[in-house]
């Protein structure tokens, strides 16, 4: 009797850890990549397990029957957890957090009950010191197995919804197995048997239809048709289309909408490049969608463009998909363009090249890794790659929603020895957005824009460089690698915007 129960400890431990990881992953997947999400989910879960362990002393009667019932309940709740939460999020984001923590609490309590119960069952047969040693070792081994399998196999191949269902099934099967093994010691066999069958059937059907369900739910989430979705080595790439609007999401953050991306990319490129009639070599860092390259290609004097984007899937997708090629005007196929898939920092450290114009179009500084791309060290490194008369432009988040973040980037560029010219533009999908031009000498806005534009025109330019009182400069410390204050400021400011 002892070995089967130890095997079930292993499975039960795996399942317990799996639900915790799934809830944590789901929360950070849906609510953003904040460390906060993951740690609060785990904290609540551990706390709930403590409650469960404490409550276990009140579980009396036939312990085997209680164990089987708890397994079925864990299987059902845990198995359906990801699907339920996903569905709820797509319907209404409001009560999502309550449901998330409620469910985590409930599953945690049930999981917390499991090990004490098993130990009490086994106590009749095994000496206590053996018992603790064996049960806890299997507990940890089970946890190890899942913690390794989850990121490597389960999350990428099965997805969260199906992984949860799979572990739910495992819990239910442990219940069924225990029922069969201990049938002699259990009274109300028929009722328990029916409960087992019902739970297993429900979870199995769920597993079969999970794929359809997820795409329905995801479509609901975006409120748009998903035309492409994949997980590359670096990020989740989703392209949606609704009527004539195409959108790109990376890790669920909107990157552009085809309705107004021209405003963003014209503002990114033309104020700087139109004032550099001699620009021949241009470097684009980030911007694998090719939209910035499309704008740069409008200048006939530009002879070569180098695009450095980390993710090869991004540049492939925007070179190959007809829909996306239409958006960037086939820019990624231009003979003037060289595509490099590399870490921009590493590439710049190794490259000897210099450029007349550099576009730094990176994701916002939401973590310490990305924060390096907005540091004094990075802007000093960039200086070695910019010609004497050259210029760079940096996308620098919203000066309205993240005012201190924006001016921190300005201060950082200045601390690295650049003269800056900050400006902003209204991109309806994003709101007021900020950019910074930096060069070794003073910048004067060009009096003409020599290429066709819809938004950035000579008469509109001066207004972009004027900051109304609510976005005006405030004191800010430069972002150095040894303090990375920008990451903290950015998290505080955007956290405030996103709070309900």
């Amino acid at each position: 009797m002892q070995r089967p129960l130890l095997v079930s400890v292993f499975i039960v431990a795996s399942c317990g850890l799996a639900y915790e990881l799934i809830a944590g992953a789901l929360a950070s997947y849906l609510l953003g990549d904040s460390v906060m999400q993951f740690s609060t989910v785990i904290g609540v879960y551990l706390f709930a397990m403590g409650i469960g362990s404490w409550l276990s002393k009140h579980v009396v009667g036939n312990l085997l029957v209680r164990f089987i019932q708890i397994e079925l309940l864990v299987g059902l709740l845990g198995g359906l957890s990801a699907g339920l939460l996903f569905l709820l999020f797509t319907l209404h984001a409001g009560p999502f957090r309550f449901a998330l923590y409620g469910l985590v609490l409930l599953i945690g309590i049930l999981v917390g009950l499991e090990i004490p119960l098993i130990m009490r069952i086994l106590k009749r047969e095994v000496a206590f010191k053996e018992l603790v040693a064996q049960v806890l070792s299997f507990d940890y081994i089970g946890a190890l197995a899942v913690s390794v399998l989850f990121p490597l196999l389960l999350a990428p191949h099965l997805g969260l919804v199906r992984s949860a269902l799979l572990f739910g099934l495992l819990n239910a099967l442990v219940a069924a197995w225990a029922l069969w093994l201990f049938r002699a010691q259990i009274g109300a066999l028929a009722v328990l048997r029916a409960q087992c069958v019902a739970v297993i059937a429900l979870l199995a059907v769920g597993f079969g239809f999970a794929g359809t369900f997820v795409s329905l739910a995801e479509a609901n989430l975006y409120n748009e048709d998903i035309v492409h979705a994949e997980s590359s080595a670096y990020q989740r790439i989703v392209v949606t289309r609704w009527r004539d609007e195409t959108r790109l999401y990376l890790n669920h953050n909107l990157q552009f909408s085809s309705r107004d991306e021209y405003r963003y990319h014209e503002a990114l490129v033309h104020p700087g490049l139109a004032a550099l009639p001699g620009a021949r070599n241009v470097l684009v860092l980030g911007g694998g969608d090719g939209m910035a390259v499309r704008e740069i290609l409008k200048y006939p004097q530009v002879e070569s463009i180098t695009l450095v984007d980390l993710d090869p899937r991004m540049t492939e997708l925007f070179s190959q998909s007809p829909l996306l090629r239409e958006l960037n005007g086939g820019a990624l196929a231009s003979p003037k363009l060289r595509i490099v898939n590399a870490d921009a920092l590493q590439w710049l450290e190794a490259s000897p090249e210099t450029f007349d114009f550099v576009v730094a179009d990176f994701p916002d500084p939401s973590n310490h890794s990305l924060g390096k791309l907005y540091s004094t060290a990075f802007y000093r490194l960039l200086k070695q790659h910019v010609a004497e008369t050259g210029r760079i432009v940096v996308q620098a988040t919203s000066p309205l929603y993240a005012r201190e973040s924006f001016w921190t980037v300005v201060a950082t560029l200045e601390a690295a020895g650049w003269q800056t010219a900050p400006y902003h533009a209204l991109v309806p999908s994003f709101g007021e957005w900020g950019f910074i031009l930096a060069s070794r000498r003073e910048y004067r806005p060009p009096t003409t824009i020599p290429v066709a534009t819809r938004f950035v025109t000579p008469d509109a330019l001066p207004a972009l460089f004027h900051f109304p009182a609510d976005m005006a400069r405030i004191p800010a410390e430069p972002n150095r690698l040894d303090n990375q204050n920008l990451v903290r400021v950015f998290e505080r400011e955007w956290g405030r915007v996103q709070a309900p």
Partner: protein
Amino acid sequence: MGQGAGALMRRRDFLAATSAAAALAACGSKAAPPLPPGTLSGANDVLGHRLRRPDLPVPTETRRAAVAIVGGGIGGLSAAWKLARSGCDDFLLLEMESEAGGNSRAGRNEVSAHPLGAHYLPLPPREARATRQLLAELGVLQGDPDAAHPAYDEKYLCHAPQERLYTNGYWQEGLWPTLGVPATERAQYARFQDAVAGLRQRRDPAGRRAFALPLALSSRDPQLLALDRLTMRDWLLGEGYTAPGLFWLVDYACRDDYGTAATQTSAWAGLHYFACRDGEGQVLTAPEGNAWLARGLARAAAGRVLQNALVFRVEQGRKESVCDVYLAAENRSIRVIARELIWAAPQFLIPHVFAAQRPEWLAGIRGAEYAPWIVANLTLSAAPQTRAGQPLAWDNVLHDSAALGYVVATHQQLRYAPAPTVITWYRALHEETAGHQRQLLQSRDAWAAQVLADLARPHPEIRELATRIDIHRHAHAMIRPLPGRLWGGRRRDFERGGAGIQFAHADVSGLSLFEEANYRGVLAAERTLARLGVSFASSL
């Protein structure tokens, strides 16, 4: 599951068993996959221990130099650096290992360079003038080296996030345990911090700091020196401290800087750690640890270093010193005759090497202990995950561990994409004494298993991530600042040096710190230059 029900249980296991590793290794022994490959390296103890057997070849060649430097750690390299900077090139540096650098050497593999020992330098205070000059020469300190707060190259300043502590299943920011610590205990933290801030500001009537770095520049106020007779733990108790988190942090600091528990560390040394610097905890570091500093010093000695060279006999004459040197690679010996000798090797070797023993030296060495260290470099296919709390930092410390945690070699790389990494795990054998080093002599596999067991608590996936585990062993890494050893008179004769001989090792200070070794090396070189009649500008 493992995390929750486990955390409490595990701490109990930990206390019950002498080593957590043994417990974990025992329960996982059947299921455990084979260990990742790796090597065991360390001080060349085979060569070093030949000093005990007088069967080395008779010298067959004689070389002459104005100065012979015995030992190429930071002390010897600093002496060479100062001699060369002052235009004195007629010296030979004799190094037993295949490479100079001592505790500041590094390894390198396809993923990253990584430290084999010392891995960071706190921003040096004004008093550490030689160290600041070196940093200025290397371009890392920018502007005036004597400024109160000079600017440093961002590339070498430790990037954020700098440190985190794993406690109760959670990674918290900083090393002071704060998670779940009551306000009354945190008030003790604040009281301690105020007390050391006061000691940091304190100057004696001669303007000397209470605790200076180099320690030779410290106040000689008898009230302060008396602290050397207490242990750090007794000092804390005497001041009325009771907070477990404070005792943990102070003990961690003693183990980290001196390889010695707070129960054995001189209170003067323990307070020196907290009160000798002005920087806000900022440190300089690089993927290869402190090897870039050793390399910077060694540039000056280029062409004048003999490697794999074991000095096995020194005889001091009236006008010159004779060093017999065994060249291991050639299996022959040579004789080096020098007018001046700079002894920059650990002091415990003196009785084995000097032909005529001076009683005052032997008395100074008596009772000295050295802390052994184990340094493990783990090459990982990806950075370890953070399950709860603050993201991966440079220095990652485990609260419930006899080890000191790990630093991330790739932390200072300019890179934002995820990539393979090397982490360096440190363990000072603070509970072992020189006569009792069984643990130190464990096999590579035993250490690798122990490292994995320690790191598996915060990172259950560590075994799957590790593609290599290389163990580096330092049998005599650091002299221990035991009570009485700093200001009890034992260092006096080594500090003073003598006719034709100067001592340049950190052992002379009694604290195994870069700044001390650097100071002792430069001081020995300057005295030597004066004796040789070479003019120089002092770096001290």
